[in-house]
């Protein structure tokens, strides 16, 4: 039995707050109880693959039991036995072979750039800012738009930034949470070795998931690690990015679990949104520490739920409809995809749009239109950035 569970007093705060307990077999208190009295936990009956590792349980636990770690341990046992859902197997094999969970080859990892001029780091290079794009914005056609918006916005800040191009490899955040400890360790080792080839000032990510693991689980990185909302919010405060234009919409912000609950970043995304002229910002009834998980974390992007109950993303979208907002803003590619799916399945496509914060900023700044009108725009901006350094 796992020593981390001895602190459990069976108060049930974990299960009471668990967003997936209401729609699946997952019952954290029962899992721990069975473990404490040495009943073997069989995952299929107890829904361990339903967990999104959102960490609500661990945050709510009055005794500081790290419940998520226990779920990961249980998953690890299944991974070691090899008998896991085919989607889990394929996802992990894809990370091992191609360096991403989407089954796509490495050579196409930088195709999202569509020929835009962004510096790609070569061994020995120095950069003030390294933009770690992440697997999903690199390959998924919808979230590629976030990466392109990021590039446009960063260019207006006249900052020296670069990307890793096809050298970039999965961070392993989801790999670890799916219980594949060996593969996670391998990724940490390989990524750390790769980053040491460059002189990096600040390292920032599109996804709170990548941010979380680089920040909290990689032990040997010697640069500043930030989520982009922190970085861009600072650029706005420093006047390096001046939100001009307008975004006259009713917007509600959905806190990504790996940004908020797990890394205490609640203010920056809100400040960033408030800085865009025209936005009327709303809050969900369940926001910040109580934010409802979208069910995209912990490998759930690739694990199909066995529950027929309403998906949490659908619940979230319905809550947004009650608020009569035009846009659900988020700052995570997984949240964006799950919420956008939910908008479609709820037939709300005509009234609600799901956007990443950086897409909102990009639209307010009119950068996409500008880029389409002036093909030389990219080059002009690149030379600006060189001059500014």
């Amino acid at each position, binding site marked *: 039995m796992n020593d981390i569970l001895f602190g459990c007093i069976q108060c049930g705060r974990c299960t009471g707050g668990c967003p997936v307990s209401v729609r699946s077999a997952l019952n954290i208190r029962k899992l721990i109880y069975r473990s404490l009295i040495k009943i073997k936990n069989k995952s299929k009956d107890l829904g361990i693959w339903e967990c999104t590792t959102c960490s609500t349980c661990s945050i709510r636990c009055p005794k500081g039991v790290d419940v998520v770690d226990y779920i990961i341990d249980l998953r690890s046992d299944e*991974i*070691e*036995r*090899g*008998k*896991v859902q*085919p989607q*889990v*197997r394929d996802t*992990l*094999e894809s990370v*091992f*072979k*191609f360096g991403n969970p989407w089954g*796509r*080859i*490495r*050579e*196409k990892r930088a195709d999202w750039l569509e020929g835009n001029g962004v510096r790609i780091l070569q061994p020995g290079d120095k950069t003030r800012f390294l933009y770690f794009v992440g697997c999903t914005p690199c390959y998924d*056609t919808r979230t590629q738009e976030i990466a392109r918006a990021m590039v446009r916005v960063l260019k207006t800040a006249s900052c020296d930034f670069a990307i890793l191009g096809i050298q970039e490899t999965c961070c392993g955040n989801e790999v670890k949470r799916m219980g*594949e*400890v*060996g*593969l996670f*360790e*391998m990724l940490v080792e390989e990524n750390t070795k790769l980053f040491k080839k460059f002189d990096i000032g600040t390292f920032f990510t599109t996804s709170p998931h990548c941010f979380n693991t680089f920040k909290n689980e990689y032990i040997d990185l010697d640069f500043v690690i930030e989520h982009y909302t922190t970085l861009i919010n600072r650029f706005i405060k420093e006047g390096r990015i001046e939100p001009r234009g307008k975004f006259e919409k009713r917007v509600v912000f959905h806190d990504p679990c790996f940004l908020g609950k797990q890394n205490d970043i609640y203010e920056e995304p809100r400040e960033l949104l408030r800085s865009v002229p025209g936005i009327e910002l709303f809050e969900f009834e369940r926001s910040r520490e109580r934010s409802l998980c979208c069910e995209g974390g912990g490998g759930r992007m690739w694990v199909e739920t066995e529950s027929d109950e309403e998906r949490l993303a659908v619940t979230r979208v319905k809550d947004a409809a009650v608020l009569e907002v035009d846009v659900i803003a988020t700052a995570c590619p997984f949240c964006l995809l799950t919420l956008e799916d939910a908008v479609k399945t709820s037939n709300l496509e005509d009234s609600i749009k799901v956007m990443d914060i950086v897409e909102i900023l990009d639209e307010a700044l009119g950068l996409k239109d500008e880029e389409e009108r002036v093909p030389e725009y990219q080059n002009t901006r690149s030379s600006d950035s060189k001059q500014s350094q």
Partner: protein
Amino acid sequence: MNIAVCIKRVPETAEAAVNIDSSEKHIIPDQLVFDINEADNYALEEALLLREKTEGDITLFTVGSKESDEVIKMGLAKGATRGVRITPENLDNLDAYAVAKLLAEQVKEGNFDLILTGCISSDVGNSQVGVTLAELLGIPHATLVIKMGIEDGFATVQRELEGGLLEELKIKLPALFTIQTGINEPRYASILGIKRAAQKELRVIENITAEGMKAEVVKMYYPPVGKMAEILEGGVEEVSGKLCEILKGKGLL
């Protein structure tokens, strides 16, 4: 039950660009990612499932370069007992017959009740090694097996035929079956499992020369570009719009 499974390390070419080297007889492997041949993975899983029901050993055989140890170790991690890698000096010029002959030399010593191979390799796609191996060993075989059961020294296998027909055969062991993909759900080999598998027996047979080749690759080349293909250009929405128009125009939507 003593089982042999023949596996092969092949490149993943679903999305990758495959380039031919200057000899025009081989592909350039540098940019490619390799894995166990898909059908062989199902054959291995079938052996593992059978071994869960009956006692016995699973021996993996492969003909290939040192890099093929990767797929052997993956199989050992999943639960195979030992591996044998055969690396002849003229590895680059083997045909299916030569591969089967190399395998037969080793497999015949093992006193196996059952020999499984994939039904086809995803690189050269000959579907010849399994059946040739059975002939060389002088044992019965069945190809494209989609279901398998073993009882009292006999195997009952289902084969997939053209036109949706199925054929069921009862075959006396020892026998060889070439396994079709989809017969089971292959398990996952964890990285820690693969590392631990390094402690299992992996026998290497080198310093031999394969003989008896009956086919030779004369030339590899890309099919000539057809004139009927129309490449649609533009963003995702634009391209899908154009595609819908074309399909509608041809009465397909």
